[in-house]
């Protein structure tokens, strides 16, 4: 009987290699999503009328099933990691843009006025006052985006084994080794929980002024 961590050779990766690949395919899109959503969110805060349409567009994009999204992209980027990562980055926008907008908007006007009175320009005020105060809301969004990204990577299996740990699900089927599917599900769940915990830690480091009690969400 083959073992739990005995990865079939067709995947061309060790167990740890698959984990690395999975994390890369899941985390790079979230990072890109964060970099893209920061300016979008800032524009939405600046021009209020922009927010509802932006929200509408991202919601519509989110409704496109990941599988269909992958297939559309095969035409342009082939059966590659990029094809898996682009949709994940787009999905993360749906969570991150509202999180950042709400976070930045929640900064009290007195605080902004105080910052202006101290002589901070718009740019420094953004980086030194608004962004730090919005950190808890941004991290809350990042947690949801990261966890769902880790889960969604596995669907990449369907487009030519680009699903990292998700590829184990297919192998479990074709080699009749259900333990591989158990392994895949447990490993992905563990990765998601660890990534979530890591983000909570990041929030604690970035916001030393917050009370230490865990808040909901």
């Amino acid at each position: 009987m083959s073992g739990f961590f005995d990865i079939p050779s067709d995947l061309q990766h060790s167990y740890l290699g698959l984990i690395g690949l999975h994390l890369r395919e899941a985390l790079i899109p979230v990072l890109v999503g964060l970099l893209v959503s920061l300016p979008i969110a800032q524009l939405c805060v600046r021009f209020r009328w922009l927010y509802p349409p932006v929200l509408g567009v991202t919601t519509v994009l989110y409704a496109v099933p990941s599988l269909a999204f992958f297939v559309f992209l095969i035409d342009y980027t082939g059966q590659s990691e990029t094809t898996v990562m682009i949709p994940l980055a787009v999905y993360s926008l749906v969570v991150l843009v509202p999180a950042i907008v709400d976070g930045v908007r929640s900064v009290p006007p007195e605080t902004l006025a105080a910052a202006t009175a101290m002589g901070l320009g718009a740019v420094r005020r953004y980086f030194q006052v608004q962004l730090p105060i919005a950190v808890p809301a941004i991290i809350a969004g990042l947690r949801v985006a990261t966890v769902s990204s880790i889960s969604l990577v596995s669907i990449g299996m369907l487009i030519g084994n680009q699903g990292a740990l998700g590829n184990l699900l297919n192998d479990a089927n074709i080699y009749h080794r259900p333990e591989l599917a158990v392994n895949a599900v447990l490993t992905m769940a563990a990765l998601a929980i660890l990534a979530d915990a890591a983000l909570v830690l990041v929030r604690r480091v970035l916001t030393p002024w917050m009370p230490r009690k865990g808040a909901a969400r």
Partner: protein
Amino acid sequence: MNILNFVHAFFSDSAHWHGYDGIPTRFWEHIGYSLEALAYSAVIGLPIGVLTGHYGRGGNALALIATAGRALPTFGLLVLLTILLGFSLVPVMVPLVVLAVPPILVTTYEALRSVDPSPVDAARGMGMSESRILFQVELPVALPLILSGLRSAAIQIVSTATIAAYVGLGGLGRYIIDGLYQRSYEKVVGGATLVAGLALATLAVFWAVGRFAVSPGVRRGA
């Protein structure tokens, strides 16, 4: 532009409109799965969210459950359960419910927690019983947020119910999965268009329900 051509080719082919693999059949199958999964998720998520929110307890436990639910990979769970339990609707329902319960649970809890305490105190001062406070004061005020939780759950269910086709069930995902294996782009694109359209229709339904169910006073305040 070629995507539009595929969409046109798919919808103008009359063969796609009839029989067990026709658009109407697959459409209703998809709606059937989605409604069933949403119903289970609401039955699980709403009462727990409302009670914990009303009493203001168990927020941390709820956050843990929600994180655990989100952490379970939907697609992995689907394949694993199909291997273990064989072909049936159960392996599809469980992952969909696991996917949809966290947003319902967390949003409902937060909706109840964010109700302005002064009307609740006033209601209590007027001698309303706990259950009347809950149903006549807290729930109407919390309704818009509760609906938004249900809405995001419903959209996730509609777009994820597509993967039911991978384990041999119907629904609009059939076009995507079959199209992938047959290298038939128009099928894949047509299926994806239908699912996206259905998700948009879901948005519209929730908007209408919100107009209808949310009291005018609450709507104006929001």
